[in-house]
């Protein structure tokens, strides 16, 4: 429990440190604040931050090194991260198991037989 708690607190601290330079950025409003409803409240910022951490650890669990996973998550938009968090297994990926191929072939052959000969 304490480990979980420490993890949470340190994540929050990192978040605060990250937010610091943006809030005092010479009074300019950055472009991403203007684009497509990017204006998040504080809760939205935290949710996105945690979603990024989730996706990163999911990628690592699927065989990506931690450095590489970090770079890959960094290239995603907030919206994409939100779509992926907890959903990686449900997303289409450009490949399937050989058993699925074999099964697909069997079903198709059966379907052809069914439509032509019955």
């Amino acid at each position: 429990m304490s480990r979980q708690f420490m993890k949470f607190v340190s994540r929050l601290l990192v978040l605060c440190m990250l937010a610091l330079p943006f809030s005092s950025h010479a009074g300019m409003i950055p472009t991403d604040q203007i684009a497509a409803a990017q204006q998040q409240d504080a809760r939205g910022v935290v949710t996105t931050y945690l979603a990024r951490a989730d996706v990163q650890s999911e990628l690592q669990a699927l065989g990506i090194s931690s450095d590489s996973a970090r770079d890959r998550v960094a290239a995603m938009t907030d919206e994409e991260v939100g779509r992926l968090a907890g959903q990686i297994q449900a997303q289409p990926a450009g490949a399937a198991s050989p058993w699925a191929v074999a099964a697909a072939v069997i079903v198709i052959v059966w379907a052809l037989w069914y439509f032509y000969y019955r």
Partner: protein
Amino acid sequence: MSAGRFCPQGARIAGLLLLAAALLSGCAGLPQVDAVRAARDRDQLPRRVELADVPFFPQQEHHCGPAALATVLVASGTAITPEALAEQVYLPGREGSLQVEMLAAARRNGHIAWQLAPSLVDVLREVAAGNPVIVLLNVGLRPMPFWHYAVVIGYDLDKGEVLLRSGDQRRKRVPFAPFDFFWRDSKYWAMLAMPPPRLPATANEAGYGTAVVAVERLGYAAEARQAYEAMLARWPESYLALMGLGNSLHASGRLAAAADAFRRASLAKPTDAAAFNNLAQTLADLGQWREALEPARQAVALGGPLLETSQSTLSAIEREVARLPANKVRKSSKKGEKKARNP
């Protein structure tokens, strides 16, 4: 069968699937194909296009994602290999590549990732404009999906077929109906990787602007600025492009040009505080404190979710103006060539 060979087998069963598709398409309508026929009849598309110069990367096991991405990136002049891209998109635990990561990897290479509307006509419009399009196909069946990335490099309206770089096939011809059938399960997913300043033929202002912001976040400042400029060539009044250009010029220290962009932005959308706030801040950075007052007040008056920023910009400017030597400040003071003292 320890390692599955994905896409070559996909190609082999494709022939069988064509028959199945032909059977199924008899019962279900094909709105995508109908739309293409309508576009053909209205002469909205060239009859026949083939982007023969688009390179071909025969895919390694499971690596249709990296191969498809390399195809479009190299076609636009980027030097990269499928192996290097596998590092950015391939997911060993899924033996494949996710759509989100295909978009993200385009960004990582300084390209604008543009996801197309789910429309075959749009895909053909892009191809006709010289842009190869990555599509996600399900070459299996719906309950047993078998996902595959391919690149559309051409089409022929009279023969009714698309041309693909796909798997280990350099030039695969697929008639429209089965193509629709394979493509349908991905909800007609298609993407472009487009290097600025070239704009996708099917780009819309808001969507493309958001895509540019996503690339800019990764540190591609020069590419983003080119993209904003390209946007302004097509949509001269684009608020997002003017703001993006202004911010980009401000960040690189070209303050006078930035102020100009923000001024245009404030005219394009006089109801949004951000342009006025950034104009005020840029004029302040130029030392033109008196000129900065008016837009700063305007930003505060407009309010909005970023009111806090506008307020702090205004109070900083007011503090400086109060400290100016000749303290004759009127709301709309015209004079202000004087450089401010160092803060």
